Every structure is written in C-alpha cells, then in structure tokens.
C-alpha cells in the first residue's frame, strides 16, 4: 500500500465505520446493539489504525492533501477516545429519554472522521471538508431528541449560526487563495515568505481576519460565543460533551496546523495572530467567567465554563507565534486539550446522569445535597469540578500551570497575571456547585438521582481516576506530547 493511502487510513477507517453503521441502522431494532457495534468499530478501526501508524512514526507525503504526522495522530487518538466515551454514555442516556437512537452512532462516527480530517488537513479544501463533515453531523446530533423542543431549537440555532460562520471562513480562504495562487498550505507559505502576493497586502490581511473570525466562531471565543450556551444547553447531554470537547479540540488542531505551516511564514501575520488571540483569549476568560457566575442551569454553566476554557486555549494558541516559546507552548496546549477531554466529558456525563427523563437540563437545585443521597456520584462530580477550576492535584491544574508557566518564561507577565486573575474568578462558580452538593440550603430536601447503570458508573470512575492520576503523575501524558510537531 502506498504512503498516500496509509496517510489517510484513520479518516478512511472512520468513514467506513460510519457507512457501516448507517447501513446497519436500517436493520437493527435496538439502539443499544447499534451503540455497542459503534464503539467496537471505532475502537478497532479508528483506534487500531492510529496505533499502527503511531508505531511507524506517522506517514507524511509531500504535497498530499492530508498529513498524517504524529501531531495529527495524537489528535486522532483523542477523537477516537472522546467518540467512544460519548457513544458509551449515549447508550443509557437515550434509553432513559425513551428516544430512538439507532442512527445516532453513525453520525457520531462521521463527526469523528470530520474532526480527524480537520486535524490533518494540509490544504484549504481538506480543511473545509473536515470542518463541514464535523459541523453537519453536529447539527443533526444537536436535534436528535426531536420530542424535546429545546433540542430542536438548539439544532436550528447551531445550524444557522454555523453556516453563517462558515461563510466568513470561506471568504477568508478565498482571499488567502487570491494572495498566494495556491490552496496548499505549503504553497501559501512559500508565497508569503517570498512576498509574491498577487492581489496585494490588503486582500491578504482581509482574508486572514475573515478566516480568524470563522475560527473564533468554531472555538466559541467571546464575542463570537453567543451560539454556544444555547446549543450546549439544548442538545442531548452526551452530544454536548462531544461538541464541547471534540469540536473544540478539532478547531484548535486545525488552528495549530494552519498557523505552524502557513502563518509563521510571514512575521506580520504571526504578530497579528499573537495580539488577536491574546486579546480575544483574555476577554473570553473575563467576560465568560462573569456570565458563568450568574448561571443557575448546570449545562449552561458548563457551557460558559467551556467558553472560558477555550479562552485559556486561545492564550496558548496565540503564544505559538513566539518562536522561542513554540515547542514548549505546543506541548502545553496539547496537554491542556487532553486534560480538558477527561474532565469535561466527565462533568457532562454526571450532568446526563442527574438529568430526569422528562427534562433537558437541571438547575443547581437538582444537585443540592447529592453528597448524602448519592455520595459516590457527588464525589466524582466534585473531582471534575475542582479539576475544571484548576485546583492542584488534578489534571486541570497542570494544564493551566504549563500554559501560564510558558507565558511567564516568555516574559509575558501582564497576560499571565490577567489570565490568573480570570482563573480565580472562574474558581468561584465551580466551587458554588461543589458547595451545593454537600451543603444544601437550609430547609431544602436533598435532591434524588435517577437510577444509574453500571457502564456509566464504570466510565465515570475511569475518568475520575484519570483526572486525579494524571494530576499527580503527569509523566504519561507529558511524555506523549513532548516533541510533537508538524511533519
């Protein structure tokens, strides 16, 4: 088999798995069977191809449409993991909602194939196709609980705003093409570094800004975040986890690759990238935390929490522009994204467990006093909340520590201290949830939790244990992300 075919193996494997799942959906009656088959095919086809390629050190073909270097494989591994977790959580969640979910798993796998495409794209066409494969699957998944009006509303909002933001991204791509006469990342970089810009600098900068607007939308950075809380609140809870973790990681992966292979070629663009990401990141951390403090609905609170986390990721992405920090910061961002996966999927999983069948979201009232009625669940939820807040001994703390450590090392004291102040504000609303778990307000009956199945409990245990283990012994993960880069 040629290197070109090898390089597309993970994406092709997931695409094949998605087709199989859609075909099987025509004959399968039980969503549970479909889900188990979906998880197996994802782990075997997707996970297997990632492992095989990783052991060979990746496959990079010059001037191909996708690059399958170790960086892309690392992201592919994260996507396989989050997709499997989300599918396993969906089994019980959708049964609890008495919803038909045979087709659900095909869409989750298709979305994963899109994320992989985005993470390994080296051409504007594959970048766009990966992004849209992911987004189109998300629109469908967000509206999967057709009987719940909030799910339908979330789907419509996500669809209209997603298509709207894609138009900006596309116009940006068109202008980038006009500035370089090439759609290939390498070709654009060559044009930028030699200064051969056919239509002049204004068009280049316009394209760059429009592209970033589209990217900020997908990363849900303030002021382009307004779709996220509504969509995350209305969508089925495991799907929210997929969108918040998978979608954001994929957008960050695309941003990392296009920045490292294209925009570093021009010092002017790299400077603009740095300043824009720092400004938008800090604004996101501050404004997002302030709005999150006022939230009463848990999924909406978690939605703003993931907006704020995108802000921290944006600080890391911005600092990639500093050549001396690049390697360290890339490792820090990758660590952060992996940590974010563990704790955020965990938090949304608990939110899905606590949710009553007839509801789509619960207020903090449904969590008050869980420490006495469901002690194990409450303990796990506290771990995820403390990790999201960045309390030491959790993986969330180390994620923030590495990013801020790199910023301080680079001498960006103002950015680092402002970010830290924002992180302290953010701690407040996570602790508010933990306090509600253990100290219900006077006169309030402790809330009850619907019955939890053993698969969900087992997965929650694994994620909670991982959050703590990697928070104390991060060596496993830091060893994995060290020295990764574009091939």
């Amino acid at each position, binding site marked *: 088999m040629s290197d070109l075919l090898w390089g597309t193996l993970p994406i092709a494997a997931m695409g094949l798995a998605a087709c199989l799942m859609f075909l099987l959906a025509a004959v399968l009656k039980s969503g549970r069977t479909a889900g188990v088959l979906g998880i197996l095919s994802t782990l075997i086809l997707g996970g297997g191809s990632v492992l095989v390629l990783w052991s060979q050190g990746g496959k990079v073909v010059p001037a191909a449409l996708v690059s399958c270097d170790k960086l892309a494989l690392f992201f592919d591994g994260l996507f396989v993991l989050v997709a499997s977790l989300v599918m396993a959580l969906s089994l019980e969640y959708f049964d609890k909602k008495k919803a038909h979910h045979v087709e659900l798993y095909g869409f989750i796998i298709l979305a994963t194939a899109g994320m992989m495409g985005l993470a390994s794209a080296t051409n504007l066409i594959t970048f*766009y196709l990966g992004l849209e494969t992911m987004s189109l699957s998300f629109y469908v998944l967000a509206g999967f609980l057709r009987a719940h009006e*909030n799910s339908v509303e979330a789907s419509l909002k996500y669809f209209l705003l997603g*298509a*709207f933001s894609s138009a900006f991204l*596309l116009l940006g791509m*068109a202008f980038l093409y006009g500035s370089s006469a090439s759609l290939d990342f390498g070709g654009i970089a060559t044009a930028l570094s030699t200064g051969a810009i056919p239509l002049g600098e204004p068009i280049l900068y316009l394209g760059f800004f429009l592209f970033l607007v589209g990217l900020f939308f997908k990363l849900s950075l303030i002021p382009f975040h307004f779709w996220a809380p509504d969509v995350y609140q209305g969508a089925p809870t495991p799907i929210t986890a997929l969108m918040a973790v998978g979608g954001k990681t994929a957008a960050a992966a695309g941003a990392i690759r296009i920045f490292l292979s294209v925009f570093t070629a021009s010092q002017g663009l790299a400077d603009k990238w740095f300043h824009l990401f720092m400004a938008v990141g800090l604004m996101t951390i501050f404004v997002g935390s302030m709005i999150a403090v006022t939230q009463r609905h848990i999924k909406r609170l978690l939605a703003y929490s993931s907006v704020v986390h995108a802000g921290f990721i944006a600080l890391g992405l911005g600092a990639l522009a500093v050549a001396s920090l690049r390697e360290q910061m890339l490792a820090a961002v990758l660590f952060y994204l992996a940590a974010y996966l563990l704790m955020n999927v965990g938090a949304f999983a608990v939110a899905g467990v606590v949710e009553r069948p007839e509801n789509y979201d619960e207020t903090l009232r449904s969590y008050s006093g869980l420490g006495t009625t469901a002690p194990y669940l409450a303990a796990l939820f506290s771990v995820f909340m403390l990790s999201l807040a960045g309390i030491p001994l959790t993986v969330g703390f180390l994620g923030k520590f590495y990013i801020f450590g790199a910023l301080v090392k680079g001498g960006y004291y103002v950015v680092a201290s402002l970010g830290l102040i924002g992180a302290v504000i953010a701690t407040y609303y996570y602790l508010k949830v933990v306090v509600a778990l253990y100290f219900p307000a006077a006169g309030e009956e402790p809330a009850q939790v619907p019955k939890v199945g053993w698969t969900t409990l087992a997965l929650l245990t694994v994620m909670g244990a991982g959050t703590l283990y990697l928070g104390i012994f991060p060596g496993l993960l830091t060893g994995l992300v060290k020295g990764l880069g574009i091939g």
Partner: protein
Amino acid sequence: MITIGHYLVLASFLFVVGLIGALTRKSAIIVFLAIELMLNSVNLVFLALGRYFGQLDGAVFVFFIMAVSAAEAAIGVAITVAFIRRNKTTAIDAANLMKW
C-alpha cells in the same frame, strides 16, 4: 474591460447583501437563503481567481462548496421542518426558550 477587481467588488457586494439579509430577516428559511447567497459570492471569488491565475484549483474548490451546500440544505430543511412542527412558524423569534 472586465478585470479581476470587478469580480471581487461584485462578490463583496453579494456577500454584504447576504450578510444583511441573514442578520435582519425573521424567517429561518429566508435567513438560510441569505447565507447561501454569501456562499455563492465566495464561489464567484474562487472562480474569478482560478481563471485569473489560470488554474483549476479555484473551480475544484467551488465544486466542493456546492456539494457541501447541498448537504447543508438537506439538513437545514429537515431541521426547519422539525422546528415548524413544534412552533407552527418559521420565525426565528420563536426560538426563544433558552437565553442568557
């Protein structure tokens, strides 16, 4: 003489028309049509640039954009139908269950 500049101006004009339509209209279907107009203005940019550079790349990208828009339209119509069944209207003002 029609130059590349003319095409870019026309496409930008169409993009802005679509943008204003998407931001101001109330019906979900009209908003979607306005977004399609924005996408088509991008198609025009790609085609004009591809021709200007004497490459096929621009035209190839346009085929992909059209394919994706078609898929997007199919999904959009399905979502809108689900929305109409619940709310008996296409007005996006009716999508007001979740805010702040």
